[in-house]
């Protein structure tokens, strides 16, 4: 059963050194505030799983929290490279980084298999691709009915999933709408789950009966963290801060500028920094309307 707690308490209780952690959110609802808390608590030797490692994994990798990344696309979307992740892979700074590389289809299917309690996922993919030569987890199975060879990858079963959702009700149930990505599967595939939300409401009220809702008993901790997805966005609350993604390219390019930024904006700040960003972007939206 989930319970409401502070961000610091939630990470303290659920993320341990050496854990396999999946922070999901497909462009929308990326759990940046929670990622910063993991950095502040100086977790080490993590295996991070994520379809699209972007700024938050760049920051965790550059701060030395990560031994291995499991991913299918790494980049600053629409902008360019993740300089900290590249520095770790190409130069071993601040420490060497192991990579297990998949495709989106493979990872989406592997999360589904994890949520379903199956040992592996099967799909039609990786045809004519070299990745299986460098990733031994990519194998094939033969269809028992047709004899067709299909791709297989092991289920993803993280120790802990961390996601950001729109709101929680009083009982600790959680609602997501918009681009819902693979978060439901990530939570249901994991042993523990931390969910940060924009707000806590008494009751969800009128909603589509098909809205994505995670019942409270599927999660370990709920944290009210307004703006917690910034510079990603929260549908109906604030827009994606595209200017910030462009700015990150310059901040992260050099080790010194990266470390100085992390000290000023992460190590010496807390979740309140995200609420400030949400207020700023809300005002910007109101001003433009």
């Amino acid at each position, binding site marked *: 059963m989930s319970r409401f707690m502070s961000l610091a308490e939630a990470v303290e209780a659920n993320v341990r050194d050496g854990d396999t952690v999946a922070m999901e959110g*497909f*462009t*929308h609802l990326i759990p940046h505030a929670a990622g910063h808390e993991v950095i502040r608590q100086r977790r080490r030797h993590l295996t991070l799983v994520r*379809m*699209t490692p972007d700024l938050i994994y760049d920051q965790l990798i550059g701060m030395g929290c990560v031994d291995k990344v499991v*991913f*299918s*696309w*790494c*980049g600053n*979307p*629409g*902008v360019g*490279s993740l300089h900290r*992740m*590249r520095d770790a*892979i*190409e130069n071993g700074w601040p420490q060497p980084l192991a990579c297990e*590389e998949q*495709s*989106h*289809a*493979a990872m*989406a*299917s592997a*999360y*589904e298999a994890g949520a379903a309690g199956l040992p592996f996922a099967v*799909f*039609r*993919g*990786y*045809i*004519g*691709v*070299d*990745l299986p030569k*460098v990733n031994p987890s990519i194998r094939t199975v033969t269809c028992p009915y047709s004899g067709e060879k299909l791709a297989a990858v092991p289920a993803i079963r993280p120790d802990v999933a961390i996601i950001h959702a729109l709101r929680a009700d009083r009982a600790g149930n959680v609602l997501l709408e*918009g*681009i*819902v*990505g*693979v978060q*439901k*599967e990530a939570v249901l595939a994991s042993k523990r789950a931390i969910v940060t939300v924009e707000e806590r409401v008494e009751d969800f009220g009128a909603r589509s009966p098909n809205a*994505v809702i995670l019942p409270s008993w599927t999660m370990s901790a709920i944290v009210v963290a307004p703006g917690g997805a910034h510079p990603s*966005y929260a*549908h109906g609350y604030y*827009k*994606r801060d*595209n200017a910030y*993604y462009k700015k990150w390219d310059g901040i992260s390019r050099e080790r010194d500028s990266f470390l100085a930024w992390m000290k000023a904006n992460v190590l010496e700040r807390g979740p309140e920094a995200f609420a400030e960003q949400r207020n700023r972007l809300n005002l910007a939206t109101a001003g433009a309307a």
Partner: protein
Amino acid sequence: MSESYTPTEMMTVAASRALKSSDVCFVGIGMPSAACNLARLTHAPGITLIYESGTIATKPAILPLSIGDGELCDTALTTVSVPEMFRYWLQGGRITVGFLGGAQIDRYANLNTTVVGPYHKPKVRLPGGGGAP
């Protein structure tokens, strides 16, 4: 009106002209997205654009920076989960054409989006295959 153009602009326009109004197109971000929306706003108004973030039949008024900008969801006919996107819509064969970018292409049309140099000691680490393989 400018009379000069860049090779990138020419490539984008040429690619746009290869798309038909009857196509259901799986759209990559960047140049493919620009070309697909150019087609939709000119000679192929009926084209259905699908982005891997789950947005189906989306009609963005502003070109998205990322594959999952809110604009794509706000203007979509429907938005599905990422596993549903890859299983039912792509693997299920509901598209007529896929339009993606790549860092390198060889004379056999093999694409490279992964690394330049040896895989385990790359000279340049590229973003990876993403939705392509």
